[in-house]
């Protein structure tokens, strides 16, 4: 395991996977869009606005999944001092922020016709907005240090502190009276959604996950090259 914590070794495995992950992403998102827009039925209450669900819910899941990955990577990097963990955290943050933004915007667009409001300060919406701010705060903090290694370590601590927000987001609809509906998929009794809607939802989620992995690998390549450039320039400065 330690061998693959070295960024160079990691990319030697990740680079060959890139075309396959890209292919799966294109196929999954394509199939999900077809099923979601053309095949799945309108909801008996919500009509066609239910089709926003096929973007909103997977992006919400990704917003939390990416942050969870960042928290694990940060903990690993801080405990075992593996630079790859910090790199994964730094590379993941903009991706997570984008998914969170998509979740908030699409949620607003779904809320207006269904609830009659673009926004409400209920527990779920507020905690997801806080998640977005934590992403932005992490990106600002990690880039604020002249010593990039120190910046990564400091920002990783922020990620771990902010991880408390994930269970708050998940359980907010159960702990508080919220406008946002309770869980319909990840529940003890199983999904409450008909298969004709569940399939495009799950396929889109898979597509978004592989998209995250594709962009993560690309950003890691950029990050690794930038680190080597910094080291080369530091070496030249000392010479």
């Amino acid at each position: 395991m330690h061998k693959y914590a070295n960024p160079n070794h990691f990319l030697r495995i990740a680079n060959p996977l890139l075309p396959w992950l890209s292919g799966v992403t294109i196929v999954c998102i394509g199939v999900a869009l077809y099923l979601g827009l053309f095949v799945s039925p309108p909801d008996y209450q919500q009509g066609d606005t239910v089709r926003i669900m096929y973007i909103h819910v997977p992006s919400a899941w990704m917003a939390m999944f990416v942050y969870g990955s960042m928290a694990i990577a940060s903990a690993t990097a801080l405990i075992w001092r593996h630079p790859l963990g910090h790199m994964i955290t730094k590379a993941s943050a903009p991706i997570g922020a984008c998914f969170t933004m998509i979740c908030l915007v699409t949620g607003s667009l779904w809320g207006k016709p269904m609830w009659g409001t673009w926004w409400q300060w209920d527990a779920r919406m507020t905690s997801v907005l806080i998640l977005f701010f934590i992403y932005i705060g992490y990106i600002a903090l990690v880039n604020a240090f002249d010593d990039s290694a120190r910046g990564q370590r400091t920002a990783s601590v922020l990620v771990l502190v902010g991880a408390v927000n994930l269970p708050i987001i998940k359980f907010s609809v159960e702990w508080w009276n919220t406008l946002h509906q309770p869980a319909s998929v990840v529940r003890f009794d199983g999904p409450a959604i008909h298969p004709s809607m569940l399939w495009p939802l799950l396929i889109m989620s898979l597509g978004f996950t592989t998209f995250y992995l594709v962009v993560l690998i690309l950003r890691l390549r950029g990050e690794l090259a930038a680190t080597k450039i910094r080291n080369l320039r530091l070496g030249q400065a000392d010479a």
Partner: protein
Amino acid sequence: MVDQITEFLAMGGHGMFIWPAYITASVVLTGLLIVSIANARNQERLLKQLRAARRGARNAP
């Protein structure tokens, strides 16, 4: 045919909410992908140039 397309785009009167949602997601994710690819390419090109310059300096008489 045109009627069918118009009906599809209208989405039961909710098209003005549904299509901006899909467009927002497409624009944001495509933009993220393009920026990430461009950044990786630029950094790798710069690294290659720096390494070549270093090798040149070492080999110079």
